[in-house]
């Protein structure tokens, strides 16, 4: 079985992929580089954050505690809570909207006029998205290990792997949402804007759930909770969270396939 659409899409993404991977490596390097100076005053940082208003703290730490005295605590707050997910989401939403992009530009007509089913095209586009995120996450994982150990922050290999796996699943989830919106509407702008908006909402739900009582029950529905709520860098892999993420992705892709097969291709 030849995955031509997958191969073509992956090749189209190749150059931006390299740029993204370099960006992630540099980002990790920057955080790791400043750690020694932060560590020295780690407890005062922690105190400072403890004195912040509760709402503020909830946003920064997505409801978790803050601990700058350990490498894991530091990386969790600085890299994995905000910057990391944001970059991964931007990438994944961009890649997930590739199908809508083809429709928006008008190249989808000729692609679909080939003897390949629409479901197949969509699934291969999804595979390209997932593969892209996997490559980025591998780069991030290697950066954490290599740069971390160079700076004397020993992040356990398995815990780092768990953290990037959960982060990757978060990215693929929002990429799949972009794919779904694109499959439903064929509009590139919507395929990017809707997942971005949902991501902000999901981030806030997870962050504020610790202080806003009515958000408590819906916290688990936030992909951000599945990602970082269980603190993978310190506690390792959460099979439940992986299962929830994988199921969500499967549902999103299934809905996308069903709707894409049913509708007119826009010109």
């Amino acid at each position, binding site marked *: 079985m030849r995955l031509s659409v997958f191969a*073509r899409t992956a090749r189209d993404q190749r150059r931006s992929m390299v740029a993204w991977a370099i960006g992630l490596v540099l980002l990790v390097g920057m955080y790791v580089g400043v750690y020694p100076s932060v560590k020295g005053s780690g407890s005062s940082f922690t105190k400072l954050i403890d004195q912040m208003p509760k709402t503020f703290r909830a946003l920064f730490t997505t409801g978790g505690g803050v601990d700058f005295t350990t490498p894991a605590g530091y990386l969790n707050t600085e890299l994995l809570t905000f910057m990391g997910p944001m970059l991964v989401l931007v990438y994944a939403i961009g890649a997930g909207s590739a199908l809508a992009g083809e429709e928006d530009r008008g190249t989808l007509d000729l692609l679909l006029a080939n*003897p390949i*089913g629409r479901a197949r095209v969509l699934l291969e586009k999804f595979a390209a998205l997932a593969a892209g995120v996997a490559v980025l996450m591998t780069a991030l994982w290697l950066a954490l290990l290599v740069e971390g150990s160079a700076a004397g922050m020993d992040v356990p290999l398995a815990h780092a792997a768990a953290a990037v796996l959960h982060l990757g699943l978060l990215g693929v989830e929002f990429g799949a949402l972009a794919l779904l919106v694109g499959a439903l509407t064929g509009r590139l702008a919507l395929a990017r804007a809707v997942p971005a908006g949902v991501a902000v909402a999901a981030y806030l739900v997870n962050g504020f759930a610790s202080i806003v009582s009515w958000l408590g029950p819906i916290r688990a529905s936030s992909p951000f909770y599945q990602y970082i709520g269980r603190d993978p860098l310190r506690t390792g892999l959460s099979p439940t969270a992986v299962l929830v993420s994988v199921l969500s992705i499967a549902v999103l892709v299934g809905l996308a396939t069903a709707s894409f097969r049913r509708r007119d291709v826009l010109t």
Partner: protein
Amino acid sequence: MGVVGGEAGVDHPPPDPVVRLEGLTKDYGRHRALDGIDLTVGPGEIFGYLGPNGAGKTTTIRLLLGLLRPTAGRATVLGLDSWRDSTAVHARAGYLPGEPTMNGRLTGRELVSYFAALRRRPADVTSATGLADRFDLDLDRRIRALSRGNRQKLAIVQAFMSDPDLVVLDEPTSGLDPLVQQEFHQLLGETTARGATVLFSSHVLNEVDRVADRVGIIRQGRLVAVEHLADLRAKALHRVEARITGPVDLGPFRSLDGVRDLTVEDGVLRCGVPRPSLDGLIKALGRYPVADLSVTEADLEELFLAYYSEASADAA
């Protein structure tokens, strides 16, 4: 084969037409873009689908390729349903969209290799190279660096490269210069000579005129006529303007078959006549000193007028 009448069993069912549209209807919201089109096109035929812009030509073509879902009715290609069996239809058909858009970062060769891989016909790349040579198209340039005409050539190449049984072309010669058009028309001829069928749309009568065997005329979503070209030609009006010195007796002009809008003003005689009456018109003009004469072929709208006036005359 000659199974005549009620023989038991259906050992030799009649061959499926290459294209069959049955009550094909498409609504966009409240707007009815296509209204119950019935049409069959047989093997080896070049069918011209003629109509003004916005009449429903592109909608019909995209329904035929399963890119749109019909509101009612159905389209079939070689007996396969265009919507439900679209993948099988695509394996037998080549397609040239009205405004072909291709990934500009690819070269022509990368594009045809991609499509050949999707078709699981790697040898198509060779056939595409041959076609590109024929049209003097450089396959190694990036698509975004190609002129409009060259992009159109590339779109033609990918539509024909797999030797499809049916080629569907939406306004194929837009942007092509006359020499290339000639080559293209020759390609159409070769395509039908090997038994394949061509369906192409146009809003230019002239183009259809040169290559099509039959034409369908579509107007506001309805197929108003399907005719052999010879019959259509007979109906097409020519606009005649003749500057005549001296008084004119309109009698002989009025008696021409199918003459319309006959006027004389400031020594200029104007009228529209169908092709078969041109000879009579010239002979009638021959009796006068003619200072100037112009004959232009009617455009599509005028052809429709001619068609409608006849249809309403028949109805009356």
